[in-house]
């Protein structure tokens, strides 16, 4: 690349929140060249969080969540066509319709898709849904409006819990099957997962924890009729929502030489993609759910976040860096933040709750259902989660940003009785979260040294 970084050709692959905000920021930052945004869905960028809330409640139609623009990104939109490959040497993105788009700089923001039910024949039963796209939400909302006798939700993470909440609000019977000991345990750890379980049960959810679904059952005519659970019980239901998390959209990069795998595409703090060899590129950038990036506050651990706020913040940094010379580039340092609204409660998280060994309830109480839980790792505050206490989040954000000692300084007027008594956070060990492929090196000459990647079994 020569000349002014604010000129040339930029291709953004991914036309959701991160792709849109990046495109706007490129123009804000003075990019005057040609800008193309590629999206596999046929729709202009739309917002997904309402799909599991307002849309399932029947309050708003699924096709009404189009994202407003901050400014006209003045882009060519190639919607409804997926990217199928990347040639980093020729600097071209290959599209499903056979075309290839040349670029000077590329932003990858292909995000995730819903993890499908592993058995394709069972997954194809009428009445089995996942929830990620506008079409998923429209189909599921229509089924809920038709008044099924029971809905089975597989997985009690945030999406599964929000779906269960919407069903109960609509007066529908719901069974939730969760492999872990309680809802949200993988994200928030033991203490809050107990409150989450209580919220489910208080609102009439038939919550089954410590079980897996072993088979989805049809009625003989191709319609979903129920499921067998690992504890030997059977649940009869008309609708099934598979909420088992997300799969990162990286398959199209398999031949690209980028460090793309099941946990996303690795990039540096400036959003520049790494190759498989760990060499940073200078013309390929990554943002949003599909990225993995190091964060200094969390031991430089590579974070992969499926957070709305991270998509926006990282897209802004990536776009800025794409049109800025090296010394003016910025690191992506914003703290992870997310929220969930379920069962009439508002959960907000700041920091990385899974990067913790202990927690304390700093304010409020589990009994009141209104509290602030602070997470610590090796004596430093690393995260906080509030339930109906969002106005405290900024305070804990400050503690995390300043690496404040854990347990946090006492003194809150509404401090909990146990505010000085940390308990184990009971989250998955950060060291055990990895599902890395096995890597081996071959060859001897410096320019023949190669790496062989074996996908995880």
């Amino acid at each position, binding site marked *: 690349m020569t000349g002014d970084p604010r000129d040339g050709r930029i291709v953004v692959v991914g036309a959701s929140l991160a792709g*849109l905000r990046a495109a706007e920021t490129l123009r804000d930052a003075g990019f005057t060249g040609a800008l193309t945004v590629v999206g596999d869905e046929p*729709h*202009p*960028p739309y*917002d997904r*969080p*309402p799909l599991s*809330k*307002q849309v399932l*409640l029947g*309050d*708003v*139609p699924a096709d*009404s*969540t*189009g*994202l*407003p*623009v*901050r400014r006209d*990104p003045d882009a*060519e*939109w*190639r*919607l409804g066509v997926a990217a199928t490959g990347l040639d980093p040497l020729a600097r071209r993105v290959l599209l499903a319709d056979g075309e290839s788009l040349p670029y000077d700089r590329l932003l990858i923001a292909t995000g995730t898709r819903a993890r499908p039910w592993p058995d394709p024949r069972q997954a194809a039963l009428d009445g089995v849904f996942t929830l990620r796209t506008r079409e998923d939400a429209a189909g599921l909302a229509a089924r809920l409006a038709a008044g099924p006798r029971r809905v089975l939700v597989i997985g009690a993470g945030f999406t599964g819990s929000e779906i269960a909440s919407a069903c109960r609000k609509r007066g529908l019977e719901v069974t939730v099957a969760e492999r872990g000991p309680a809802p949200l345990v993988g994200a928030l750890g033991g203490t809050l997962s107990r409150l989450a379980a209580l919220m489910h049960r208080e609102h009439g959810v038939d919550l089954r924890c410590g079980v897996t679904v072993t088979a989805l059952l049809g009625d003989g005519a191709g319609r979903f009729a129920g499921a067998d659970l690992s504890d030997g019980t059977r649940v009869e239901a008309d609708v099934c929502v598979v909420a088992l998390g997300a799969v990162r959209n990286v398959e199209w990069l398999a031949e690209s030489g980028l460090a793309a795998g099941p946990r996303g595409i690795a990039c540096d703090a400036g959003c520049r993609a790494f190759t498989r060899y760990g060499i940073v590129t200078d013309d390929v950038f990554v943002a949003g759910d599909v990225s993995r990036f190091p964060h200094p506050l969390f031991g430089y651990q590579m974070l992969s976040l499926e*957070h*709305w*706020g991270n998509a*926006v913040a990282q897209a802004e940094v990536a776009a800025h860096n794409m049109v800025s010379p090296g010394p003016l580039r910025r690191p992506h340092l914003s703290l992870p*933040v*997310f*929220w969930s*609204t379920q*069962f*009439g*409660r*508002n959960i*907000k998280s700041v920091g990385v709750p899974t990067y913790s060994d202990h927690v304390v309830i700093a304010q409020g109480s589990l009994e009141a259902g*209104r509290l602030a839980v602070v997470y610590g790792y090796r004596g430093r505050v690393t995260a906080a989660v509030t339930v*109906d206490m*969002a*106005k405290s*989040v*900024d305070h804990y954000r400050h503690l995390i940003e300043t690496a404040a000692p854990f347990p946090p300084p006492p003194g809150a007027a509404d401090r909990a009785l146990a505010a000085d008594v940390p308990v184990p956070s009971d989250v998955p060990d950060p060291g055990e979260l990895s599902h890395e492929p096995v890597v081996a090196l071959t060859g001897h000459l410096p320019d023949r040294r190669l790496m062989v990647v074996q996908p995880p079994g």
Partner: protein
Amino acid sequence: MRIVVDLTRCQGYAQCVFLAPEVFQLHGEEGLLYTPAVPGDRLERVRQAAAACPVQAILVGEEVAAGDG
């Protein structure tokens, strides 16, 4: 017109609900849900709500016009 609320910023002050209750609703004490597609006759109130948001989390704007170019 469309709106999107940056709910990572939202702290549940509910100023938007006071000013445009047909568009913004609280579920529980501080969980905000809203109607993303703003009816024309509510636009003025939505603009008031966006101006009043203490954390400036409400974006009002047009969708991407998705024709090529």
